[in-house]
């Protein structure tokens, strides 16, 4: 038997198969389009859950800039006690910091912690609203990452890799599951706070996946989606007329030319038309009852985290798969009163606490919390030491990848638990470390996806969100 010949035939078969599937990914426009906007019609292209899913949607509240865990979730009486003293050399020998130079001094949290709810979770006084839903969330105090600069760490938290170029979690999810919404994008991004996140649009980029899977940013100024509104003077009727004409001309051309791509183009124009009404309807939060506005602290028309939280609920209600909110400003180095722990951190908490808690309550009262995963957290943590950059007089903390806190709620995550712990100073993780890939693996798991099996072949290699690692954190899920 000719072994070499057999082998090459096998390889050829494999490559042909691959060829077909790759084409299915983005060659056939209709499939790709439907994939992102209309999962139901494309069962053959959409992989769908691999096993029964606990959750259908994800809302990721990304606190860009990295909130201080020791001031919000990780209470450290020992740190308090030794406030102002030099940190023991054992901790910082050979450590690399972004800004700290010389011998840093420990900085106890200036804020009070209390045990809340039945679960007795420790939450800072800065988050009074979150304290009320303490029994609905799972706090993870033992997160860690490998990156300690904003842009790479944000890219890492979003794409599982520190360098730009891989698909974000939302892209993977819409690629793997499609969307249950027919007239909105499956992956929507909402930004509030000081600015865009440091990682830029790469945080919601689709990397090597087709661009239909990239997050669509709903803007808070101008059109929520770029070019959604008809030009001045063009009535809705004129637009409908022109789309009818366009459709008819394109259909005529399809009949004579026969390229199926033309039908995809027709569909994409029709979808655009649907979005012209569905998106404004979605972002119009005026029609929400007063009680809801009060609950979230929303003010229609304002660029705010609260408005975005309410929009997030409206999006998942409509079946959107992945909603990501960015709120930037948590980079509390203490170089001035505008980025310190004492003045700025409480302001940020005021900007976000009420709405984040309201989102949980609201989803819960609508029965949506069971099927929606809410994640809160930033790209890394902050040092238990005062940064004192250029001998700053303001209190602040440097970047700290070794330990930080996040919380998750809904979607089959265990409510009312606190997972993991850090040492007495909050410097290193003591128990149950959870890394970024573990978090990703667990979220995918709740969505019915085995993180080792959701792959995409690119440049000769099968890539996945969790790269080559990641374990489902069983202690976190029901």
């Amino acid at each position, binding site marked *: 038997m000719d*072994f070499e010949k*057999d*082998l090459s035939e096998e390889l050829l078969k494999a490559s042909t198969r691959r*060829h077909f599937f790759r*084409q299915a990914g983005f*060659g056939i426009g209709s499939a*790709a389009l439907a994939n992102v906007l209309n999962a139901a019609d494309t069962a053959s292209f959409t992989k769908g859950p691999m096993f029964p899913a606990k959750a259908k949607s994800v809302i990721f509240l990304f606190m860009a800039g990295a909130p201080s865990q020791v001031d919000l979730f990780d209470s450290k009486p020992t740190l308090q006690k030794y406030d102002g003293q*030099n940190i*023991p*050399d054992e*901790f910082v020998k050979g450590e690399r*910091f*972004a800004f700290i130079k010389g011998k840093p001094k420990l900085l106890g949290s200036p804020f009070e912690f209390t045990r809340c709810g039945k679960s007795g979770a420790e939450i800072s006084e800065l988050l009074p609203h979150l304290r009320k839903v303490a029994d609905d969330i799972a706090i993870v105090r033992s997160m860690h990452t*490998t990156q300690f600069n904003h*842009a790479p760490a944000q890219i890492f938290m979003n794409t599982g890799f520190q360098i*730009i170029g891989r698909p974000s979690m939302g892209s993977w999810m819409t690629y793997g599951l499609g969307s249950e919404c027919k007239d909105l994008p499956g992956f929507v991004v909402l930004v509030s706070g000081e600015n865009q996140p440091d990682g*830029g649009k*790469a945080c919601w*980029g689709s990397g090597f996946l087709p*661009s239909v899977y990239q997050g669509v940013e709903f*803007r808070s100024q*101008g059109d929520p*989606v*770029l*070019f*959604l509104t*008809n*030009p*001045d003077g063009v009535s809705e009727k*004129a637009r409908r*007329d*022109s789309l009818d004409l366009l459709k008819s*001309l*394109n259909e005529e*051309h399809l009949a*004579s030319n*026969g*390229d*199926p791509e033309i039908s995809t183009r027709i569909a*994409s124009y029709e979808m*655009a038309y649907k*979005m012209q009404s569905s998106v404004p309807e979605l972002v119009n939060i005026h029609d929400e009852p007063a009680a809801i506005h009060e609950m979230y602290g929303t003010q229609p028309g304002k660029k705010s985290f609260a408005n975005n939280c309410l929009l997030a609920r409206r999006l998942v209600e409509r079946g959107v798969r992945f909603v990501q909110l960015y709120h930037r400003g948590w980079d509390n180095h203490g170089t001035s*009163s*505008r980025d310190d722990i*004492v003045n700025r951190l409480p302001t940020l908490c005021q900007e976000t606490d009420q709405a984040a808690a309201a989102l949980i309550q609201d989803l819960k009262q609508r029965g949506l919390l069971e099927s929606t995963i809410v994640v809160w957290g930033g790209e890394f943590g902050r040092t238990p030491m005062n940064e004192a950059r*250029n001998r700053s*007089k303001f*209190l602040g903390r440097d970047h700290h990848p070794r330990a930080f806190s996040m919380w998750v709620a809904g979607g089959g995550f265990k409510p009312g638990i606190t997972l993991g712990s850090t040492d007495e100073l909050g410097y290193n993780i*003591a128990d149950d*470390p959870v*890394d970024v890939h*573990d978090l990703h693996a667990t979220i995918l798991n709740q969505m019915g996806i085995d993180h*080792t099996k959701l792959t995409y072949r690119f*440049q*000769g*290699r*099968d890539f996945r969100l969790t790269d*080559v*690692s990641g*374990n489902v954190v069983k202690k976190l899920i029901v």
Partner: protein
Amino acid sequence: MSASRFAAWIFLATSALSAQQLTFEKDVLPIFQQACAQCHLGDASMGKLQLGSEETILRGGSSGPAIIAGKSADSVLVKRILGLTDGPRMPMGGDPLSAAQVRVIRAWIDQGSFSKGSTPSSSAVRSDVVAADSTLFASSVRPILAARCYSCHGPDVQQNGLRLDSLAAVLKGSDSGKIVVPGKPDKSRLVRRLLAQERPMMPYGGPALAESEVATIRQWIEAGAPGPDSNAPLPASKPQKHWAYVKPNRPNVPPVKNSAWCNNPIDNFIIAKLESEGLKPSPEANKRTLLRRVYLDLIGLPPTPEEVDSFVADKSADAYEKVIDRLLASPRYGERWARPWLDLARYADSNGYEKDNPRVAWEYRDWVIKALNNDMPFSEFTIEQIAGDMLPNPTKDQLVATGFNRNSMLNQEGGIDVEEYYWYSLVDRVNTTSAVWLGSTLGCAQCHNHKFDPFPQKDYYRMLAFFSNGEHHRAGAGDYFMSEPELQLPTPDQDKKNQQMLAQIEQLKVVLDTPTLQLSAAQQVWEKEMASSEKRWTILTPLRVESVGGAALAVQADASILASGKNPQADTYKLAAKSEPMKLAGVRLEVLPDSSLPHSGPGRDPDGNFFLSDFEMQIDGKPVIWKSSIADESQDGYSATGIVVKRAGQLSGWAIDSGDNNVWRRQVVFVPRDATDIPAGSTLTFTLRHEMRKTSRNIGRFRLSVSAIPDPAFIVKIPASLRLVLDKPISERTTEEQQKIAAAYRQVSRLLDGTRDQIASLKKEVDKLGIATAMIMKERQSFARPAAYVRERGTFTSPGELVYADVPSAFNPLPRDAMPNRLGLAQWLVSEDNPLTARVVVNRFWETLLGRGIVETSEDFGTQGERPSHPQLLDWLATEFMRNGWSMKKIQKLMVMSATYRQDSHVSEDLVSRDPYNRLYARGPRFRVEAEMVHDMALAESGLLSTKMFGPSVFPYQPDGVWDIPYSNDKWVQSSGEDQHRRSVYTFIRRSAPYPSLVTYDSPSREFCTVRRVRTNTPLQALTGLNDPYFFDAARALAKRLVSEGGATLADRINYGYRLTVARPATASELTKVTEFYSRELAAYQENKEAAWKTLNVKAGELANPAELAALTMVSNVLLNMDEAVTKE
């Protein structure tokens, strides 16, 4: 408490466990038996690690000792269990250990003494292989292993020491022991791993083997794992070299039946395959379609109706060829073909990463356009871009060409490791070079040996070494980024002016630094004034002092106030004093050292510093409002100005640069806004606040005085450090002190004000010259062979062996006369022995013209890429390309001249099912045009397009808010005049916020090399095409053009619109449909003129009868959005 005692206390919780002596066998081993047995106990020693005894654990595995006695935190075992190292978390693939288990293990390590237990005996190795005469292994088992396992356990790579390509090797097993127990498949690790009975499951990271495949393997083991000769290895079974790594041989042009169809040899290769598949080629496309196709492909713009007409009318045999020659000679050619090259070159106008500051790089872009227009041979094109700087006496253009590699991103984020990010740019250069020239995924070898292609990790770093000898240095305040060379490209006129002004500035600086008699005379007057001014301040003796927070404040003999006792958070001091009546010109606050304060003060924080946020004064209860507050010294960012000038939402105040020089006295002078009298007998009250919550940065010792002198701030206009010198008589000052005082005086001297102004305005003039710059590569002066460290697991922080610049070992070596440097690399890339470059390049041209490459994965020619659809055609084209001196235009001409290219693109139902992706080329290409063309075509068709070439990038219309980037106030300021309507290749590209409507049509962000763009079709494109003001403007302009050029009747105008947008007149049915639409819209606009004016974006009343043009605008909007209008047919 000392730091070390403190640390010991911190770990008390952990060490508490150690009170009870733990034993390995009783406490620790059970944990390992439960969690680690599969891989590290008994026969299994993955990574050579055995956890069965303390001795083997101390000896460790291939990563070194697993534990360090007494140091659990530093022990690899603990780090791996906690997932805190770069390696996999343990237990790999299993549940993490519980916190309690981890504590036990840590306590056991920390107790530090071990019983030297004996290694458990590994079970006897079976060698009694049942000999059986069977070919089962060779015929059935090995093909399975070859297909599924060789990439990690084959001839090139042996993960864990295991290779599966011969019977002997399979029976030998891995570093961890045997994998096959003959006769016992259930006990054979090979089977257990394949069935996930043991972890990790194999094939690692790949889909499981089919049941039948596993059954075959089981059957073979059950039969005793026989082979033809179980002791001798089978003949070497190394698969033959991958096709792409063998130099292309010029194939013979195949004979074909339908030779009449063939225009050139390309067609022979194509039709030979079609004939073998029983397919026929499509007829040639009609002339209009063909002309539009070749215009779009060669110059990226549609033909004008006149050009179409004249081509249709030209019945000569070479009509088509004449068009092609004309297009290849057009300056538009370079603008069109620069686009794919600039994607490869990741050209952009900003640095990328977080800050993403703008950069000036367009000279490189213009170089590419010019080189393409001049048909620079691809070999030269390569050498100049990779190593133009290393050519003898490089020209300006050759230097600009090296901008190719400078297009890497540059990180300027605060707090990064500058060297690390410089290294990332070298990584980018390696990956880009290998993608662009070798169509190779060498990047995979950054972290480990390539899994599929023959690139060991060292090859990667050998390649990286080529780029490691470039000039670079740290730059920016605080050295926060890496700077590489720039070339100034002034025009002769600019150069002259620049030189003149720089020389002038230098001269003026000398004036500032030169002591003169006049200056020293003036200095003496100034010094006297300084000395006497001290006497003109009246020190206030406090009557009453109080600390709100409870500190003890005591008035000293010199009327200063010293704080002691409690040091509360954000304390406030209040004091009262009497003064002589006077016109108050200023109040002075001196902060003074004292040995009782930390670091001798003057503040009370641990560094002896303070933070004064507010200083208030009342005269008999009436507040004084300050105009200014000026100090002789402030800490950076804590200027005394901040006491008086407050910004919303910002807390500001004064701190000092205490350092070690606490003997200095610092002072701040407050100047009242309005004329203020202190009447006789009045009481002055002062409030000093230290409003920094949660800190205790209060002043330790201070003193107040008042003065009526006209310029009260005069006294603080000398640095605090020099005041002591000033107090000395001139004769006692050292030379250095004298120079310092003179320099300090010159800083403030009125006599030099004019000179300082002159310098400032000259600097502005230099900036205004706007001298162009280019980013270039420059080799460091070095005689050493460029070298680089292998980085373990691809991580910058783990340097390994040093390797020297060389090309990947699987390929032809460097040419004999080439040096092992960047220039040698460039020469190697375009050497005729290089198996890949020519193939990769012609394949990309084919892809651009025909829509898909002959190798569809144009980015990956390796074993994991697609096989070429027409391997012989690819090799023929590659050799033809080289034979023609690497002329890009010649090979492209050959392609567009072929009958293959010229076929009709009509898709029959039969073809859809037989060859949906047109891999056999039984029809012509039909694809949506690329993003830049979508833009350029709309401008060209509407008559807006500017043909201006070259120069700085431009800013066409973009919606507000797209450039909303942290750390940047850069605004997108729309270009004016014709720059609004330039070709897209000139549009400014900011990597973190690229031009949105180009991105919508799949243009990349240019952060990294993009070999192949995806081609999508989305609703966002529909919204852009319909509503983006850029496109709607084009619709308005097109409507005007239809009126002015299209003819008198509506039908003529509609036809003209069709001819402009799709190069053909409308069909009768189309004409009817568009006419009906037009009438409907016309009627609506006649009813609503307001809407018509708005549609046309003119003032109400500007056009008396706007309805017609508005309705035509809507027609144009539709025409520009037709599928056919954005498709190359």
